[in-house]
């Protein structure tokens, strides 16, 4: 047990102090910080880039249309003005190229007495003015056309008013309504599920690789032979998995903690933003508990696989190739749960939530988004735990032989060789 702690702490501390780890963590935190402050950052650049308000020249046959347009633009906060000009179209275009105007809007009247317009600009990139002008002119045209047809303004606004459309879930168990997840709860759960799924995906790939690389490194540098003559390889394998696990939790806690602090600070700014989309305030405690359970179990399952595969390669360069099956499994699990996110009740997702390699993601998804009986979750957790134990037992034997194997081949056939090496014949 003493040596277990030695390996465990060594793994944790040496990884924690590694430059690569510190850099990744700092970069990630920076990314979180920038993402949270993205709106204030872009506005900072905007206010510097466009200090003055810009103007669009308007040449209009009908003066009332220009007045209506100008009025509408003032009400609906736009970042440019319109200016009526009397010059010819060509001259106006010239002043655009000179930079006096953002563009020229040429409004003519059609045979039906409705406005038609052409917008001339030298800056095809900036679509905002164009879209705004076209939208406002559209409104003016509709008003004019309906006026000509003799329709009342109120009828028109009722036509354009969006219809009320609500979605409500029907409880499977009948009428005892208590277990129905409301729309808010569901969207909240969806947010958390999405975050956890992504974290799990990220964790399995990066920490799995870290474990496999670490073991391959010890084999490449041949220090492995000393290590396994000092303490049992199986002991070391689990100490490593736990050490990297603790490292992972530390990093995750840092990310989530910093993320949470920023959100709390910006809560006022973000009203209707992040909190509503992810609805974090609406989530039940059980979802959080499931998140932790499935995160840990998922990590252990994939970490054990990574450790075993890492023990089979003798060069660090071969780790990626060996890790391919694990990566494919986790990508598949992630894909299924992405589908499940929009349709958590589908048969496909249900079945996959009992398959150990997918269940950390898909069962958590179902538990978080649906109200499923507790025994279903329990069964899935049980299957997962049994698989992890089985994996660990077989893995330990493969590991014991694998660490002694030095060869160039990198295929899963090596598992057989490793088992032979560790077994008493």
């Amino acid at each position, binding site marked *: 047990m*003493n*040596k277990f702690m*030695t*390996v465990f702490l*060594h793994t944790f501390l*040496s990884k924690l102090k590694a430059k690569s780890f510190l850099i990744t963590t700092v970069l990630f935190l920076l990314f979180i910080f920038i993402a949270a402050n993205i709106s204030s950052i872009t506005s900072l650049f905007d206010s510097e880039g466009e200090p003055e308000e810009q103007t669009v020249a308007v040449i209009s046959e009908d003066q009332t249309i220009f007045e209506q347009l100008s009025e509408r633009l003032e009400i609906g906060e736009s970042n440019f003005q319109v200016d009526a000009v009397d010059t010819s179209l060509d001259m106006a275009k010239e002043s655009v190229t000179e930079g006096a105007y953002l563009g020229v809007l040429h409004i003519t009247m059609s045979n039906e007495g409705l406005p038609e317009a052409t917008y001339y600009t030298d800056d095809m990139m900036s679509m905002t003015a164009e879209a705004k002008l076209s939208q406002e002119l559209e409104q003016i045209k509709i008003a004019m056309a309906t006026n000509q047809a003799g329709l009342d303004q109120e009828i028109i606004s009722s036509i354009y008013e969006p219809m009320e459309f609500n979605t409500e879930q029907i409880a499977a168990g009948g009428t005892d309504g208590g277990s129905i997840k409301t729309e808010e709860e569901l969207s909240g759960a969806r947010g958390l599920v999405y975050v956890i799924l992504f974290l799990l995906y990220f964790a399995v790939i990066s920490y799995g690789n870290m474990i496999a690389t670490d073991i391959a490194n*010890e084999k490449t*540098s*041949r*220090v*492995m*032979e*000393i*290590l*396994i*003559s*000092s*303490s*049992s390889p199986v*002991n070391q394998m689990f100490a490593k998995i736990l050490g990297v696990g603790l490292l992972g939790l530390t990093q995750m806690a840092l990310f989530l903690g910093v993320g949470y602090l920023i959100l709390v600070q910006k809560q006022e700014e973000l009203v209707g933003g992040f909190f509503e989309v992810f609805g974090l305030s609406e989530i039940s405690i059980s979802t959080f508990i499931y998140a932790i359970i499935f995160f840990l179990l998922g990590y252990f399952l994939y970490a054990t696989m990574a450790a075993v595969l890492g023990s089979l390669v003798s060069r660090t360069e071969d780790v990626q190739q060996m890790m391919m099956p694990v990566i494919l499994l986790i990508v598949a699990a992630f894909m299924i749960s992405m589908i499940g996110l929009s349709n958590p009740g589908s048969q496909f997702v249900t079945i996959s939530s009992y398959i150990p390699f997918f269940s950390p993601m898909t069962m958590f998804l179902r538990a978080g988004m649906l109200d499923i009986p507790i025994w279903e979750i329990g069964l899935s957790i049980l299957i997962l735990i049994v698989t992890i134990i089985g994996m660990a037992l077989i893995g330990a034997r493969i590991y014991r032989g694998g660490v*002694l194997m030095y060869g160039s081949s990198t295929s899963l056939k090596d598992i057989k060789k490793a088992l*032979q*090496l*560790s*077994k*008493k*014949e």
Partner: protein
Amino acid sequence: MTLILENVSKKFGSFTAVDQLSLEIQENSIFGFLGANGAGKTTTFRMILHLIDPTNGSITWDKDKIDYRKSDLIGYLPEERGLYPKLKVRDQLVYLGKLRGMTKKDAQKELNTWLDRLKVPHYLDKKVEDLSKGNQQKIQFISAVIHKPKLLILDEPFSGLDPVNVEMLKSAVEDLKNEGTTIVFSSHRMEHVEQLCENLCMLQTGKRILHGNLREIKRSYGKKNLRIETDFDINFVKQIPGVLKVQTYSWGIDCQIENEAVSQKILEQLTGKGFIRKFELEEPSLNDIFIEKAGESYE
């Protein structure tokens, strides 16, 4: 604390790496393991260390199986050198010491003593990858002995070292023996084995072809080496019955003879022919024995 191997075999599939090997290694002695490349030395060491299990036979130390309960009493210097390249010498040795059951304080104390003794104290805070091969080897040696093992297994401990460092490590090995450590070591260099070991065993494709006390092995080998320096031509010695191999030099000859008696016949024939500068009868070197024994099984 005798280490006993009884009829130990190890098969990898159809390949037999070690075949029916029996040995008895006494406490507080240095035991030499000889053999050409691929003779099964490393496999035997790995079995003693419990890294791999023998297919047949048993290995006991002090009448008990060797497993991880005993690993704190065992030191190992593998043939393939292995340390963490990116770790500093201090951290490395403290970690490996702790894995052998030492406390951090003890490990630090021992490590300083050893670095001083091997004259490399200034490498304490250097990364292993920045050291020369010979110095890495010294660190590797320290990692094998830092915890004062009772049983020390050294697989080719002196390869890659210059003569000064070989002497330094040799005296360290002898001191360890005098302090009560049982040492098993393997080498291709016969002179190292001759200088250090009382007992030895020679392996050839997994089989034991020679075993016992060094002096007895030499005596029972029978053949002797004879060196003759004369002022006259002595090539006729080749024709004398009992002379096996002759090597001619500018100053005279080296020859191998079947037994001591042959030397006297040669001497009789030489007398009166001229001036004899040297006539020396020598014990055969282990190198001769090894080459002949190893050569025999190739034929």
